[in-house]
């Protein structure tokens, strides 16, 4: 029992952790500007391509480049596409982010074609270690630990730094925060940068797990993370993180526990769950305080 249980839990949490980081990336931007950012998919995909392009270079170089690329991409999309739309209704912003996402995705197809490309950014982590008497995949363990560390770091940032305070204030009441001198552009840019950092980490870990990238690489994870943010409560960061873990764990457990006939449909159940949450708890399981417009 014990030897089977630990790997399954590490599995579940490594998947859940990636969803949680992605959901947080989406949640950070949503909470300050009510943008449900579809293009977060490309914030994940593009750095993964950077890993592919620089796969002959040392790991440190390729990962740093991936992070840098993600941050630049996030800042450029914010400036070029989302800033002009600030204050427009959230539905139009959602369509706009869909368009941004498709635009970048198609640029990638244009530049690299749509076939899958091999990547292996964390080859050093192949193999497994013994943990409480069970053999645990080193990469998955690293994923879980990285996710936890980042969650703690983000919490500390939001809770104890001046930037973090300003971001939380902006998330609660954007106009009031600006009246107090919080600079809108800076807060939003900070949210995009943080979101991109999380996306880059997801890109590294997720591509190490799958071993390849393709133009829809980020989309698969972002669509599920969207679900997680909705379940956790749009605009609530804690909710997004918990929602991410929850979706990952539930989906991994469904994979393990469902009868084989139904396994391919497991994600359908997850999306059904979203619709149910939207209907019966439209503010999510952990409603955000001070969220102005209802969904």
């Amino acid at each position: 029992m014990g030897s089977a249980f630990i790997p399954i839990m590490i599995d579940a949490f490594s998947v859940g952790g990636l969803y949680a980081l992605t959901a947080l990336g989406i949640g950070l931007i949503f909470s300050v500007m009510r943008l449900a950012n579809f293009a977060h998919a490309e914030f994940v995909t593009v750095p993964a391509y950077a890993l592919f392009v620089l796969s002959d270079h040392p790991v440190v170089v390729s990962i740093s480049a991936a992070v840098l690329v993600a941050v630049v991409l996030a800042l450029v999309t914010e400036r070029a596409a989302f800033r002009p739309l600030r204050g427009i209704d959230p539905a139009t912003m959602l369509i706009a982010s869909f368009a941004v996402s498709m635009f970048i995705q198609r640029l990638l197809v244009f530049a690299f074609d749509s076939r899958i490309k091999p990547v292996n950014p964390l080859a050093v982590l192949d193999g497994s270690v013994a943990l409480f008497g069970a053999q645990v995949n080193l990469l998955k363990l690293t994923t879980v630990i990285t996710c936890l560390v980042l969650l703690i770091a983000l919490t500390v940032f939001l809770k104890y730094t001046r930037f973090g305070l300003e971001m939380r204030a902006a998330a609660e009441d954007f106009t009031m925060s600006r009246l107090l001198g919080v600079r809108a552009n800076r807060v939003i840019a900070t949210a995009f940068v943080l979101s991109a950092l999380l996306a880059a980490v997801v890109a590294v870990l997720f591509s190490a797990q799958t071993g390849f990238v393709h133009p829809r690489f980020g989309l698969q994870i972002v669509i599920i993370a969207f679900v997680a943010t909705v379940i956790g409560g749009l605009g609530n960061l804690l909710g997004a993180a918990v929602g991410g873990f929850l979706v990952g764990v539930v989906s991994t457990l469904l994979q393990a526990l469902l009868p084989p006939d139904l396994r391919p449909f497991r994600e359908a159940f997850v999306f059904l769950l979203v619709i149910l949450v939207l209907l019966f708890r439209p503010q999510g399981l952990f409603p955000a305080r001070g969220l102005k417009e209802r969904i």
Partner: protein
Amino acid sequence: MIRHEADTSARSDRWLTPDGLARLVPLFILVVVVAAVMLAASQLGIVQQRRVTFGFISLITVVGLYVFMGNSGVLNFSFVGFMAIGAYVSALLTMRPQVKATFLRDLPDWLAAAQFDPVVGALAGGFAAALVALVVGLPIMRLSGIGAGIATLSVLIIFYIVLGNWTGVTGGQRSLMGLPTYVTIWNAGLAAIGAIVLAFVYQESRSCLALRASREDEVAARAAGVRVVRERLTAFVLGAFICGMAGVFYGHFLGTLRVENFYLDPTFLYITMLVVGGMRSLTGAVLGVIVISTLTELLRLLEIGVRLPGIDAALKAPAGLGDVVLAAMMLGIILFRPQGITGGREITLRGLR
């Protein structure tokens, strides 16, 4: 000004007055345009005819999308899923039993043995889409804004996962081949005209006027007694029916179905068409299809390579450029002209009003 909101007492029996006839002008113009395209294209070669036929099928889809999203102002990412339902239902009803036996093992016996008339299959496809829309829409029509966007996206994903994995019935990830290909430029063109008429008649109805009022101000409309959920559901079901029919034509045009054809790429394409034309008018829906289809066609030709007259060199764009340009155009429209080319107005004899 948006014309429909000027007179709120739209009644079909007033259409025979001079004012009523004037109200029919947009419908008349749109039908004439589509009919003219159909007649002109029928004189062209088979390849061009097929392109135009495909454009008509897009037109049916976008009109179906417009019926709900344009009139209600509520996001809908699920409409391509209703296309899929129409396409698969019609396929299963009209394919030859021998073909079904080779691909689809889990069909119930009666279905495996049956082969219905194409018309029966097509109508069944449309009504099946409408029925599913009724069931799905009943709960989710309560949602607006981002909630509606994410819920309808979830619906699309659920359809995609189910269709892609229900291998014994849909063929799953493999292509479903052997649909009878009865679609011609004539029946597709007539179906497109039919969709336009249906959408126009609906948009002049009381039900739709109430829905449009809720689009402008949901709270005020509710206060004025508009049953928003019911009116939305009406539009959603009608839109799904039209999209379902579009799916039927799509399937019997290509003769092959793949679940990928009913997922995010076409969703984006059709939404682009509607947004570019102008989401809030039927003219916008039609114009968006014409503009984007033409542009796609030109870009496709450019990717193949065009020989310029008088110059001894071929102009050739790299593959994939077309998709990039389309997405860029969509972005540009949202940023600089969010109401689309028509600005939400219908066409009349004096231009857009």
